[in-house]
């Protein structure tokens, strides 16, 4: 049984890729799937911190590629879910320490044993990005409702198409319902209209994300009504369930959402 490899990428930095990987990975594990997260942001590793696993790292992805250890030795088991693993990035090396071909081999090996392999891509379109997408079957693009982030997301979709990764889907992060209803933010329909790809989820701006990242506890672990529910819903959609988009109480926000349904 081979699992699926999913890359989370964005183009623009700081839009929430690592947060998304940690949360949908944890949520999928909570649904009893076997999940491995790969931090492909070599040189700027973060995912271990957001997962609260930093102090357990012995080996990293570069050690595996350079045969300093076996793959199983580098995998860190999550402290909360025994079916969730992390392959950490190296902090003291750079992107060139791994080649796309090696990455592909690694991901394929992990897929043998996992339901989902989720790859956290670095920002940008250089080698780090190429490594991150090398073994992926599907891509999820994270963007925020800003013109520059959407522009970069569009660029990334073009590059993915060129690499043969078809039909990427988009997650819009840090939506602020009040700003959208005031017209101060790009609306979801504006974004989807430009990108012309399927919407996978909408995650609201939520202070709790910053707190939970600092504590190393993904928000999906607690019953968090805003961002937590949004990430859980994305995980359920990934595993094939139909889930309606969250309403976030705000009326005008809800109307906007209804419009996209008719759009796609």
């Amino acid at each position: 049984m081979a699992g699926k490899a999913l890359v989370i990428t964005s183009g623009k930095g700081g839009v929430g890729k690592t947060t998304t990987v940690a949360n949908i990975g944890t949520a999928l594990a909570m649904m009893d799937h076997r999940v491995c997260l790969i931090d492909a942001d070599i040189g700027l590793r973060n995912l271990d911190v957001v997962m609260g696993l930093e102090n357990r790292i012995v080996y990293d992805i570069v050690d595996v590629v350079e045969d300093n250890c076996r793959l199983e030795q580098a995998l860190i088991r999550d402290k909360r879910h025994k079916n969730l693993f992390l392959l950490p990035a190296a902090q003291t090396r750079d992107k060139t320490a791994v080649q796309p071909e090696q990455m592909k081999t690694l991901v394929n090996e992990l897929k043998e044993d996992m339901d989902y392999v989720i790859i956290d891509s670095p920002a940008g379109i250089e080698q780090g990005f190429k490594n991150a997408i090398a073994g992926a079957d599907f891509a999820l693009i994270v963007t925020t409702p800003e013109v520059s982030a959407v522009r970069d997301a569009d660029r990334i979709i073009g590059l993915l198409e060129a690499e043969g990764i078809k039909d990427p889907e988009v997650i819009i992060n840090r939506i602020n319902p009040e700003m959208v209803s005031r017209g101060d933010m790009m609306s979801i329909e504006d974004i989807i209209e430009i990108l012309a790809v399927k919407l996978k989820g909408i995650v609201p701006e939520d202070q709790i994300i910053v707190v939970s990242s600092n504590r190393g506890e993904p928000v999906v672990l607690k019953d968090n009504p805003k961002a937590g529910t949004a990430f859980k819903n994305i995980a359920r959609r990934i595993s094939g369930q139909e889930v309606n988009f969250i309403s976030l109480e705000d009326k005008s926000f809800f109307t906007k959402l209804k419009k996209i349904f008719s759009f796609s």
Partner: protein
Amino acid sequence: MKSPITFKVAKDGIVLSLDPEANFKRIKDALRDHVESATNFYAGADLYINIAESSFKIDQLNEIVNIARGYKDVKNIIFTSDVINRETTDTLEISNEGETYLINRTLRSGQKIKKAGNVVIIGDINPGAEVVAGGDIVVFGKIRGVVHAGAGGSDKASVTALKLDPTQLRISKKIARPPEENSKNKKLQPERAFIQEGNIMVEKFEI
């Protein structure tokens, strides 16, 4: 055998380079053939004849000018030896100026299409994408990126789209930007942009 004359489209006109090794009669014949087969691609453009490294007598230069006058509607004929400045890296090969290229997808940010002929796109031109054509640009979709029609200097080129909302629109040497207050109107309204009396005009396109 390689042609003794070569053409490049530069920012401010067309550069014709004469091979300094070739004999004068071959140059003349090649130029005459080219003039005869040329379309109005050169209309409104300046023609720079690059004589760098060649040595011609004054009456030979005269003969060249006389042949080059045969290009329809060329604005000025200018001799130059300054190749580097005129031939930007942005040059187009213009051997296919009559052709039409069909692009059957949306151009996304960072993607650029550059063709000597006409370009027809079935899809959108997204913000951050760019299309440069020697001839016309026709888009069965929305233009939100940068488009340049008549890039070889043709004032007769036009840009047509189901929705014209470009970051910047250029025809020949003219540049237009849409008004600052961005149009919230999402309705598709086919429009065509072209040059009239030296300005870029936009008219609703009646089908």
